[in-house]
């Protein structure tokens, strides 16, 4: 069965993609499987300069999930271009460059530069970052800032699909989805992590050095499915469903909620071979559900 999908012009062999920040620059997983087996992956969030990231501890396990406050540690655009891209170009899989900035200018500069890199198939803007110009609240939780930053990137990205990764920490995600679509986004990634905190009761302070962190993993799946459902109702552009995917059933759940393809994050840590495994299991599950392709099931749970 052909399970390939077209995500706003990005050809994915199969709809299972590695989520940003959990898949390194792809190469980390080469020791587990052949990267050409997977639909694609999103790079660790890239910034103009390399970043050291947050102090430690950075992670903490939670019921059916984990918190992270990695602080967007990354090699920076130059090293990504010179060290990682030459290797990635040789691999037949979709490379989606996830990126972020602290000002609209940083976003725009990065977007323009990534748009020019040969072998990058798509751009994924992470707008869950603190906006330093506006007092540090995340870009992605303010509708006006979201509009401004997406429009600015849109105006410079000419060659590749521009995907916006939405924050779930908002009252009404469909409002953000609509504004992104209206501002020229080619697709959405739904969702990034929920903000959470765990306290070490013996130390009387948060476990993470950063205080709060991002909650991911199966625990958040129901929230993510609901948000994909809402976004699908709100917009026409394709959606990456993300949040706690751990089985082929979960992949189909997101697709039926309205996702064109999905990204797997936290579960890569538990089962590093999970993405090719899900891709392999998918055709049989689709057959059992009476479907001939992924595409026909996109949004299937919305029909009556």
């Amino acid at each position, binding site marked *: 069965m052909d399970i390939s999908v077209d995500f706003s012009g990005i050809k994915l062999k199969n709809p299972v993609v590695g989520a940003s920040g959990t898949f390194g620059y792809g190469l980390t997983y080469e020791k587990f499987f052949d990267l050409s087996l997977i639909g694609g992956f999103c790079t660790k969030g890239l910034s103009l300069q390399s970043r050291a*990231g947050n102090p430690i501890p950075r*992670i903490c396990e939670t019921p059916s999930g984990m918190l992270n406050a990695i602080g967007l540690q990354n090699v920076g655009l130059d090293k990504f271009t010179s060290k990682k891209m030459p290797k990635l170009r040789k691999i037949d899989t979709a490379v989606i460059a996830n990126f972020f900035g602290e000002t609209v200018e940083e976003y725009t500069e990065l977007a323009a530069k990534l748009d020019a890199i040969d072998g990058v198939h798509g751009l994924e803007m992470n707008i869950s970052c603190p906006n330093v110009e506006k007092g540090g609240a995340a870009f992605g939780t303010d509708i006006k800032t979201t509009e401004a930053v997406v429009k600015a990137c849109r105006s410079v990205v000419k060659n590749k699909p521009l995907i916006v990764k939405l924050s779930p920490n908002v009252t009404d995600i469909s409002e953000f989805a609509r504004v992104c679509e209206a501002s020229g986004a080619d697709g959405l990634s739904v969702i990034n992590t929920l903000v959470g905190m765990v306290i070490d009761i013996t130390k009387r302070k948060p476990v993470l050095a950063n205080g709060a962190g991002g909650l991911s993993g199966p625990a958040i799946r129901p929230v993510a499915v609901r948000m994909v459902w809402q976004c699908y109702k709100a917009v026409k552009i394709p959606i990456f469903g993300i949040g706690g995917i751990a089985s082929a059933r979960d992949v189909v759940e997101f697709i039926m909620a309205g996702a064109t393809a999905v990204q797997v994050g936290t579960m*890569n840590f*538990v089962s590093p071979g999970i993405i090719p495994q899900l891709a392999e299991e998918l055709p049989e599950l689709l057959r059992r559900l009476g479907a001939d392709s992924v595409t026909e099931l996109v949004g299937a749970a919305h029909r009556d």
Partner: protein
Amino acid sequence: MQCAVISNRPLTEGFFHLSLAPEEPMGAITPGQFVMIRCCDFTDPLLRRPMSVADFEPDGSRFGLIVQTAGRGTGMLSHLVEGDRLDVIGPFGQGYNVPQEAKSVMIVAGGTGVAPFMTLAPTLAAGGKNVHVLLGARTKGHLLMEERFLHAGAQVHVATEDGSKGFDGLVTELMGKQLDHMDEPPDLALACGPAGMMRAVATLAEHSNIPCQVSLENSMACGFGACLGCVAHVRGEERYVTVCRKGPVFDSREVEI
């Protein structure tokens, strides 16, 4: 990688030795490397648990772990019985690296920190090196692997926090005393144990100008370099290294412990 449980042997209270046979042979192991273990099939607890490889067959057909029941995951491991199956990935990380030139080696191990030395100490002793093993435990009954190190030809020095056997105090205090009394300081110190102990061992070794390798036990989500959660701060630089990939064994001067 699925492993069959060959045996689960209680050691002292709260500690046990798991012997595992991988269904396909594992890659080569260096003492100090670790594996990541899935303790349950469900999502709570979600993450794998890191465990140092203790004893192992050179051909990768069998390896052992020394586990302390610390919480939920290790609690589940403690109930495994012969014939059960366990999902393991690894080996991961960088183990201890003992240069040919080092003629005398001091090993400092606390609790399950003996694990990497179960194979390493005998190998070093068999290679003609002078091996001192300093073992620390809360009380006599908690000492692990003393016999094994003696049999291997190492000189074993014991410290218990309650003075029930050997030196009365912390193993790092014992290390200080040993260094003071030795005619010649060892060429190398190797340590494995809790973070506080690693810090103390590193300080002592540095004061005596002895190269020292410590193993760090930072929390890990993946174990193979993908999450960037386990990092240690590089000394004197605004930079972090992954403990799971560049470690868990580090030269003590390389990272902040």
